[in-house]
């Protein structure tokens, strides 16, 4: 269904509109998933520290690792969108 949507947009308003939609969807959907994920990580971190404050420094390393791994998902979406914008 999505692909037919792209096709319609590209056919009617020229290829640029389709490209713009592809770029926006790539970033937008990527940000949606990563937003949920990052919220989850920090929420769990707050809960964990509230329960056992003495583990804070140990948990912090894992927290930032998880944050960076999740945050990168947005940029995979961004790169996909940019590829669609530049190459297609």
């Amino acid at each position: 269904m999505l692909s037919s949507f792209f096709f319609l947009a590209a056919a009617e308003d020229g290829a640029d509109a389709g490209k713009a939609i592809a770029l926006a969807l790539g970033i937008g959907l990527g940000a949606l998933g990563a937003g949920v994920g990052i919220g989850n990580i920090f929420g769990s971190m707050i809960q964990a520290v509230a329960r056992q404050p003495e583990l804070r420094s140990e948990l912090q390393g894992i927290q930032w690792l998880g944050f960076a791994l999740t945050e990168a998902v947005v940029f995979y979406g961004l790169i996909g969108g940019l590829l669609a914008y530049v190459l297609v």
Partner: protein
Amino acid sequence: MKRLGLLVFGVALTLPSAALAASAPEEDKGAFISEEWELHDWIPIHLGPIDMSINKAVAYLLLGALCSCLIGIVLMRVKVGKDPTRRQALGETIYEVAQVQVAEQGLPTKAIGRWFPYVASLMVFIWTVNMLGFIPLPLSDEKVTIFGVEVPTLAIFAATSTLSVTLALALMTWTFTHVEGIRANGLWKYLKSWIPDVPRVMLPLIIPLEILGQLMRLISLSVRLYANMLAGHMLILTFVGLIIVLENVFLAFVAVPAAAVFYLFEVVIVVSIQAYIFAALSAIYIGSAIEPEH
């Protein structure tokens, strides 16, 4: 003092965009953003088919290598005295992060001696190159004439926001991972350790997935750093560039603070996190190849 620094920074950010606005062609006003990532040869060096020309990214890389060497020499080569100086304390903090947070988390104890230098220098080098990317330096292709002398405009550009740099770094980690895995376990045992314990029926499905997963590590490791730095610079440039695209000077009251906020976010959080992540994941990959879990 802090406010003054921010003001100076804001002015420094707008300088390159003002110079760019003068040279931007009429029809595509937003094009100057992608032009920042066009690399022109400054000193062409062609060795047969190999292009080793010095361009903007290479200059930033060389500068980064020089600065990370300096960080190492200045902070680590100190006379250990009874009361540590600030220099020694800073050096010890960097060493401790590399040792405790990066190396000991990923590498098995017997491999720390061999691979600690690699992951620590990876961390310091990536941090330095990322950080240089957020300091306005006169290393751009645009020229501005001040008192009759042509000097390059100040611009921000990170060598790690080009894919070839991060791919080369990731390729190094990837190669070391497999070489160490084969050396520690033997070829057949190492390849077997990739495949988890699953019923025999699932094997035709699992084996291609695991091989693909090893290749995806290369992509995820390089694209994570590359896209983070690219997106950070693009955000800052886009916000400042709004002034030029929409041709309204008063937008600066909104655009420059917004760009400054993103700049601070990048400098305070992203630069350090990405350097740490790259080094930590390298340690984890190499460590898990030396000592597979099963």
